[in-house]
C-alpha cells in the first residue's frame, strides 16, 4: 500500500507541490499503476539490461569551436532577468 506520506515524499523528490485533496487522488492512481507493475516480478533476473537499442559506442564529433547561442536569444524567454543573467531563487536561505 502506498501511503499519503509516501506520495508527499515522491512529490517532494519531483519538486511538485500538492494540495491536500490531490494527495488522495494521486495515491489511488499510483496504487493501481504500481500494482500493475508487479507483473515484472515474474521476469527472470539473469538478463543483461538494454539502456540503448543501437549498437553505438563513443560517438565523437570533431572538436571544432562553433557559434554559441547569443546571450540575447538565450534570455529571450526568461521573465526574471538582471544585467544579462537569469535570475533564480536563492539556494541558501
Amino acid at each position: 500500500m502506498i501511503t499519503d506520506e509516501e506520495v508527499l515524499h515522491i512529490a517532494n523528490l519531483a519538486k511538485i507541490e500538492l494540495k491536500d485533496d490531490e494527495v488522495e487522488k494521486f495515491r489511488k492512481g499510483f496504487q493501481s499503476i504500481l500494482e500493475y507493475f508487479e507483473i515484472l516480478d515474474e521476469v527472470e533476473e539473469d538478463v543483461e539490461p538494454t539502456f540503448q537499442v543501437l549498437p553505438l559506442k563513443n560517438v565523437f564529433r570533431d572538436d571544432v569551436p562553433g557559434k554559441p547561442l547569443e546571450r540575447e536569444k538565450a534570455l529571450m524567454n526568461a521573465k526574471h532577468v538582471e544585467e544579462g543573467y537569469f535570475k533564480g531563487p536563492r539556494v541558501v536561505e
Partner: protein
Amino acid sequence: MTSHQISIAEWRERLKSEKAEDLIMELIERIERSKYNAFISINKDAIERAGEFDRGKVNGKLAGIPVAVKDNISTGGLLTTCGSKILYDYIPPFDAHVVERLKSEGAIIIGKTNMDEFGMGTTTETSYFGVVRNPHDPERVAGGSSGGSAACLSVGEGVISLGSDTGGSIRCPSSFCGVVGLKPTYGLVSRYGLIPYANSLEQIGPLATCVDDLALLLEVIAGKDQRDSTNSGKEFVFDPELLNGKKLTVGIIREMSGNDDVMSSFNEAVEVIKSLGHSIKEVSMPSFKYALAAYYIIAMSEASSNLARYDGVRYGHTLEQITSWNKFFSAVRAEGFGDEVKRRIMLGSYALSAGYYGKYYLKALKVRTLVIRDFKRAFKECNLLISPTMPALAFKIGELADPLTMYKADVNTVPINLAGVPSLSLPIFERKRLPVGMQIIGNYFEENSIIAFARKVEAEINEI
C-alpha cells in the same frame, strides 16, 4: 482516403492553376474556422513563404507544400508549447534538425499541431489547449499524442505533417484518423530540437494521406546530424520497386490483437495480403506480456529526469515573486504541469529512487532485452510483422478517464519503441464508419520494405 484529404500530387495539381499564396490563405482560413482543434498556432509567415514560391524563388523536394509540425518540435521564432501551460509562451531560439530540412527543401510550415501535454497521452485529452476532435466523429478522440498532426490531414487542414512517437504517438492517431504514419527506426531521424520526453524511446516521424507522400517526407527528414549523438547517420531513399515480384513471409503477432470490430477489419486486410501472393505465419512474442509495464517504467523514469528542466527560470510559466528555491520550483511546476504529466514525473522519480531502482527501472531494461530477442527471432522467420495498430476503434471523449485503462490502450504499439524497430500504421477497412489501422513492423532500418509493402497493400485496398 476521404474526399477531404489532400495528397501532395493533388496540391501540386492545384498549384498549376492557382497561386500558392491563395491556396495557403484558403488553408489558413479553413484551419481558423475548424471545430477539430488540430492546431495550437498558425504560422503567419506561411503566406510570405508561399509568395516566394509564386515568384519562383523556392526549389526542393517539397517546394510549395504545406507541412504541419507537432508542437513539441522546435520552430525558431514560432510558438512551441508541447501542449503545456508550462511552455504556453515559449519561442524557441533555433530550429529542430527536421525543421531545417523541411525549410531547405522548400516546404511551407503552416502551423503547430495540438498534442497531449509533452506527448503523455493516447487521446490528446491531456493537452492544455483542449482535446482534438476526430473528423470521422467529433464526439470521439483523434488519438494521441500526435492527435493534431493526424486529424488535420484527415480533414484537409494539411497535406503532410510531422509527429513524434514515444510509445505509439504517431501510429495511434494515424489509426484513429485514417491516415498513414510511421515511427522510424530509432536513430534514423535526428532528435535535435525535439523537446524530450523519453529520449531512448522516441523518434520524429512522418504522417501523410498516402504512402507515397509519407516516403517523400521521410526522405527529407532522415539522415545524418551530429547534434544528436544517437543519430545513425543513415540516409533514406525510397525504392518503390524493391518488392516487385517478391513473395514475403508476413508474421501475425499472436500477442497483439483487438476487439471484434478491429479484428474483423484486420482479418480482411490479411486476406488482401494473401491475395498479393505473400504467405502468412503466426508468431509468438512471449516477452510482450511484460512490455507495457516495462515501457511505462522507462518512459516515466526518463520523463522525471527530462522534465526537471522546467523550473520557471529560463523559459515558460513562472511566478511574479521569486521566493526560496524549494518553494519556487515546486509552485511553478504545480501550476504549470497537468495531472498526467505530474503523475508520470512522480512515478518516474519513485521508480528511480533508492531501494526501487532494481525492482522497477533495471527490471524494465531487462524486459527490453527480452523484447529485442523476440523481434530478432521473429525476423529470422518473417520479412515483416503485422498487427492491429490499436486494440479498439477511436474512443469517445472522456472514455479513458482512468490512467491505467488509458495506458493499456498502448499495448500493441509500445513493444516497437522498446526495441527501436520501425513500424507504419496503414488505414485498412472501416468499421462503424470509423477508421482502423494495421501496423506493419520491419527489422532495424528496413523502412524501405515496410513502405514498399504498405504501398502495394494500400493500392489493393483502394481498388476494393
